[in-house]
């Protein structure tokens, strides 16, 4: 029972009438806020000398002014000088030479054994202990369990369990079980001296340790497999040989066995099955409906209906062994689809169509079949009686143009000698005869086609509008100043286009053929390109108009162009900085020069001070609408603003009229308008609009009063 402290020991509850009781002892204030400044945290020894010279990296060897050791220095405290005092000779024990490793080895051999009063018996055999044994604590001491049981009504000498009816002295009596038998089945009161886990049942085959030495090599060695060397201990090293002569080296690396399969034994035992999966009964039923009836038969064998531990699968599921035929199709969720239905008239094979007009009729097909069967190759199979088609025949059949070849073949142009050579090389003597013709690239043929070409060339010349061409001609500037020949050609082109020259003159510049070597003539392609260039240039180099012409002169004839720059009076082009140099043209500058200061030299404009500035100066922000414009040059700004003001004012008037406000108000607005636009001096400090007298009474009534039968504009 927990003993509660009486209230009196706690602090009195007279804490300002509150019901708070202090329990426990408060933390001493001195411990709080232990964050001392850095200078307080410096380490100093009892003399006040600084410790930890340099960077302290841990360890305490630098405790004594960077020397090693202790207060006494290097000499240990247990040292006794043998000169003066003979230290007693210490008998050296083996423990003095052992280090941590050795100690660890010894510890490994240690065994935890119950002390004498607690050891159950000297022998290690299983003792069928009764209840007494378990419940007995240390001799002479009654264990707590003992006491608890007694409290619950148990008497020593009886067993533990429910009351059973027994016949005692002729009567049925409810008696507790005897001491050496317990009502609890399955609970063993024997000592456990193995390393089996909880729930270990040696009857279950899977739980038995596997025969292979370590399913994965390097797994936990079976208990007892490591020999507890009785010979180990002090004085025995690894080098020494064992008495048994059978060297069991636990570190020996056994050769790798490649024929091992995980779980293979089980597989063999169960008939080749490895993994077990559960498939719902419905699915299995579905599967059984399919054509693969072979698989289902295996499924129905009772051997596979059970799981490997002998238990039935969960109700609703059927066990399917992976790897079997059955599983592959069930598990992969495959649905089988029927192949597409082929129309009956389909004939597999390749048809060569030579004429699209030929209808594929059953007769045709029959013919085709016949021909196919008769001929071995498919190459020239469309026509029933076959001859090897030549290329020209084929092209004719196909309907391709033949103009360029005109039915000629290579052999027409070859000499007989060349033909022989070819025949020898290929081994084919069936070459067509060589005719040694001359090819169409000869000059003769060209001459024949010359006239034909001229007309064609002329057609290709880009045309210019007549008017355009003539204006281009009259332009003062001719391009291609550096190439006079080109220039002349350009001019001729322009002239031909404008009509002053016959077009055939253009052809004078194009080479009539490859053999034409006259200088100044161009190849046809170049000639064409040049003409196109001229066409474009004619569009660009038009004569300049008016003022622009004055600005530009060509270097050749500068004398003909005007040199002066014409300017309007209104355009003033120079920067204010030029004023220093004093350009004479400006009015005010000249006036200033003459010291005629006054309206000519003065410029007035509006300037808007910022509101903060006005505030600082203690000035009301000026009213910008009214500007007293005096002086010669009136800025556009004020007048424009004025106009805007007038406009808005006009709008205001209209609105006022529309709103059916009394006439007086409109009159007032008009008066104000006049005032604003009239140009009379405006006192900026007095704002009339704000300082108007109150509107007349009838205006008020009109706006705010009740409407007694007056027309109201809705």
């Amino acid at each position, binding site marked *: 029972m927990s003993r509660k402290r009486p209230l009196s020991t706690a602090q009195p509850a007279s804490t300002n009438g509150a019901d708070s009781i202090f329990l426990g002892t408060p933390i001493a204030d001195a411990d709080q806020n232990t964050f001392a400044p850095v200078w307080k945290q410096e380490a100093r020894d009892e003399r006040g000398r600084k410790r930890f010279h340099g960077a302290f990296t841990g360890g305490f060897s630098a405790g004594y002014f960077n020397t090693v050791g202790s207060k006494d220095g290097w000499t240990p405290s247990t040292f006794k000088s043998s000169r003066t005092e003979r230290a007693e000779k210490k008998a050296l024990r083996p423990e003095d030479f052992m280090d941590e490793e050795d100690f660890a080895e010894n510890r490994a051999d240690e065994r935890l054994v119950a002390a004498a009063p607690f050891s159950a018996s000297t022998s290690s055999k299983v003792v069928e202990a009764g209840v007494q044994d378990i419940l007995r604590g240390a001799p002479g001491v009654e264990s707590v369990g003992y006491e608890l049981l007694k409290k619950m009504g148990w008497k020593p000498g009886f067993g533990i369990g429910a009351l059973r009816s027994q016949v005692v002295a002729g009567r049925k009596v409810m008696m507790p079980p005897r001491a050496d038998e317990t009502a609890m089945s399955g609970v063993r009161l024997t000592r456990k001296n193995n390393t089996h886990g909880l729930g270990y049942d040696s009857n279950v085959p899977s739980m038995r340790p596997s025969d292979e030495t370590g399913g994965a090599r390097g797994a936990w060695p079976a208990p007892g497999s490591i020999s507890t060397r009785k010979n180990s201990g002090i004085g025995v090293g690894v080098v020494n040989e064992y008495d048994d002569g059978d060297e069991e080296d636990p570190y020996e690396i056994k050769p790798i066995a490649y024929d091992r399969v995980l779980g293979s034994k089980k597989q063999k035992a169960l008939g080749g099955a490895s993994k077990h999966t559960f498939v719902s009964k419905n699915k299995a039923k579905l599967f059984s409906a399919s054509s693969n009836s072979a698989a289902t038969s295996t499924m129905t064998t009772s051997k596979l209906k059970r799981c490997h531990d002998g238990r039935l699968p969960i109700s609703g599921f059927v066990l399917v062994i992976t790897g079997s035929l059955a599983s592959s199709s069930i598990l992969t969720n495959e649905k089988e689809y029927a192949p597409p239905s082929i129309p009956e008239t389909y004939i597999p094979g390749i048809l060569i169509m030579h004429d699209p007009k030929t209808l594929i009729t059953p007769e045709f097909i029959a013919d085709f079949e016949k021909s196919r069967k008769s001929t071995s190759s498919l190459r020239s199979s469309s026509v029933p009686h076959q001859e090897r088609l030549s290329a020209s025949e084929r092209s004719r059949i196909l309907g391709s143009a033949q103009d360029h070849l005109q039915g000629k073949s290579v052999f027409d142009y070859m000499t007989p000698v060349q033909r022989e050579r070819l025949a020898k090389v290929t081994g084919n003597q069936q070459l067509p005869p060589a005719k040694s013709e001359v090819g169409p690239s000869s000059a003769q043929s060209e001459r024949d086609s010359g006239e034909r070409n001229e007309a064609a060339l002329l057609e290709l010349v880009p045309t210019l509008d007549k008017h355009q061409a003539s204006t281009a001609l009259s332009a003062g500037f001719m391009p291609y100043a550096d190439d006079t020949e080109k220039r002349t050609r350009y001019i001729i082109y322009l002239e031909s286009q404008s009509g002053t020259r016959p077009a055939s003159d253009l052809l004078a510049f194009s080479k009539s053929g490859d053999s034409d070597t006259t200088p100044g003539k161009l190849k046809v392609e170049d000639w064409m390109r040049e003409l196109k260039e001229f066409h474009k240039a004619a569009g660009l180099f038009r004569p300049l108009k008016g003022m622009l012409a004055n600005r530009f002169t060509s270097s050749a004839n500068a004398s003909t162009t005007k040199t002066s720059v014409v300017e309007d009076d209104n355009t003033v082009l120079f920067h204010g900085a030029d004023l220093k140099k004093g350009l004479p043209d400006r009015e005010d500058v000249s006036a200033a020069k003459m010291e005629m200061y006054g309206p000519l030299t003065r410029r007035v404009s509006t300037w808007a001070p910022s509101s903060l500035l006005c505030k*600082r100066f203690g000035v009301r922000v000026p009213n910008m609408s009214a500007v007293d414009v005096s002086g010669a040059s009136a800025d556009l700004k004020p007048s424009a603003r004025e106009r805007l003001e007038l406009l808005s004012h006009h709008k205001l008037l209209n609105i006022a009229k529309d709103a059916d406000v009394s006439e007086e108000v409109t009159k007032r607005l008009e008066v104000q308008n006049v005032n604003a636009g009239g140009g009379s001096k405006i006192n900026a400090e007095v704002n009339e609009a704000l300082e108007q007298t109150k509107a007349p009474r009838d205006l008020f009534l009109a706006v705010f009063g009740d409407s007694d039968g007056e027309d109201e504009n809705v």
Partner: protein
Amino acid sequence: MPFPVYSRNAPLKEHVGPVHVVAYNTTGQYVLSGGQDRKIILWNPNSSKLVKSYIAHGYEVLDIAVSYDNSKFVSCGGDRTIYLWDVTSGSTTRRFSGHMSRVNTVDFNADASVIASGSYDAKVRLWDTKSSSQRPIQLLEEAKDSISTLQIVGSQIITGSVDGYVRVYDLRMGQLFEDLIGCPVTSIKDSTDGACVLVSTLDSTIRLMDKSNGTMLQSFKGHLNKEYRIRSCFGDNDVYVISGSEDGKVYAWDMLSRRVVHELKGHGEKVISCVAYHPKKPQMVSCGTDGSIQVWDCS
């Protein structure tokens, strides 16, 4: 009143290098001077003794203006910054930067809430001393060339620029009056009555312009002013017009007759860049490129 013509024997030589500006405070008790040596010196003209020196500028000091209550003053110079000083403590209260070139001229408004500064970059910036904003209240960009001089008079800001214009920005009216003088303006001084403006230009002429219509009322010649900024001022309640000169003499004209009444030698042939007249009594202070500051008295 007589004109102060007598110079003291010992001119103040605290500055090293040319002195660009001298200014009286409102009572006339002290004079502030700034020069090429980046120092500003507060000294007593009566005793010719140095009272305090203010050292903060990175470049030469080009102009100084004193507030109405004499508690602070503002200075500007080549480091493109405007320094607002506290007189007694000698430290800079605020610094305004934003100009893109050297600041030629500064001035306070009536209650020292606004500082106007004109710079070589042709802009006038108006700074607010009351808020801690780093940006000017307003920017006046009408000038096409360096602002050489400016003055705030009441609710008007008068600027003179090298582009030859004198611009009067009237806050009350919301108008800008631009008067073309024709020659680069080096100095502007408003008259006591506020009706006219004294304009020094680089053609060795000082003109008195009427603010209302831009006409010239008077012109003063005789001195030499072709290259440097020479400042001119009024003296003795606008009776005299006083100016320095590039020939080392202080010139004084009678305003009405435009005659040269005095030519005072004091700075040994060196350019006299600035003159200031005592607000109350006949005393004058001039400074020059020789580094000396001369006090002129009547006796």
